[in-house]
């Protein structure tokens, strides 16, 4: 292995960090083997590396595939996979960089409101002070209506969070699938 090959493998390894360690080192080892075969074939290292394509792109093809394929185990596994996929997709483009975190934040806030609002509604019904429903100092929800009103608001938040979650998940799948389709063929001489 010469310097250029070492650097290539190092960059590949670094960019494969989302993968479990055994898969990661297996992939690096396989690419290392490929480079050595090419060199043994009498090809210059630069040509072998060029044939493999950019190390980061190669790593992304592995990582995207990993996110698409690994089965979800339980709600916790599913949640962590979701966060991992979101992080990966955020890094794939300028649009994703804004869309994914923003949408995720909105979904989180809506979900939080859906849970917290009914609690506040109950508290307000029983006269706990300091809970404002409506325009502060102007129009207010009558105290008796606190709970039903909070439920309606919570339901709206829940629907928003659900739709947002579906949208985000669809978007993640779309981008990941796009990456998996990222098998650049050499353009055939016509």
């Amino acid at each position, binding site marked *: 292995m010469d310097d250029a090959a070492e650097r290539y493998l190092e960059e590949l390894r670094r960019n494969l960090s989302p993968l479990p360690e055994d898969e990661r080192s297996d992939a690096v080892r396989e690419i290392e083997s490929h480079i050595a*075969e090419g060199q043994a074939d009498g090809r210059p290292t630069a040509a072998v590396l060029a044939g493999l394509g950019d190390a980061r792109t190669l790593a992304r093809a592995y990582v995207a595939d990993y996110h698409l394929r690994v089965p979800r185990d339980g709600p916790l596994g599913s949640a962590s996979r979701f966060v991992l996929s979101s992080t990966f997709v955020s890094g794939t483009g300028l649009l994703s960089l804004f869309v994914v975190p923003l949408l995720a934040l909105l979904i989180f806030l809506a979900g939080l409101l859906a849970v917290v609002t009914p609690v506040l509604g109950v508290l307000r019904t029983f006269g706990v002070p300091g809970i404002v429903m409506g325009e502060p100092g102007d129009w207010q929800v009558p105290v008796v209506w606190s709970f039903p009103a909070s439920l309606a608001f919570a339901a709206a938040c829940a629907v928003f969070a659900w739709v947002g979650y579906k949208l985000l998940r669809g978007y993640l799948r779309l981008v990941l699938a796009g990456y998996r389709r990222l098998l650049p063929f050499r353009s055939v001489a016509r």
Partner: protein
Amino acid sequence: MRAGEWSSQIRRGTLELCILALIAQKPRYGYDLVSALERWEPLATTEGTVYPLLRRLQREGKVEASWQESAAGPPRKYYRLTPHGRDLLERMTADWAELSEAVRETLFTEEAKSHG
């Protein structure tokens, strides 16, 4: 859609079939597989793309792999078909034969020509 993009989509779709077929002939390691594909110009891919695809085939249980020392040089990761992979290859081959025959007929039969 540009013709170039169309043709690379077709080749992408058939690459998995070709890889399974090549592995069915004999156990192969990545470099061997890439070199085998090189022999046909339309199948020559960017070499790196074969490896993530092999990883996926392995994860889906279509191929299995094992590392073996080679006489000279580094260890090689050999792939062979699993029974599931073999079934799949059989069905894909049949589908492909049917599809390519149908396409050929639409393109070249007299009736299709008179409508075209």
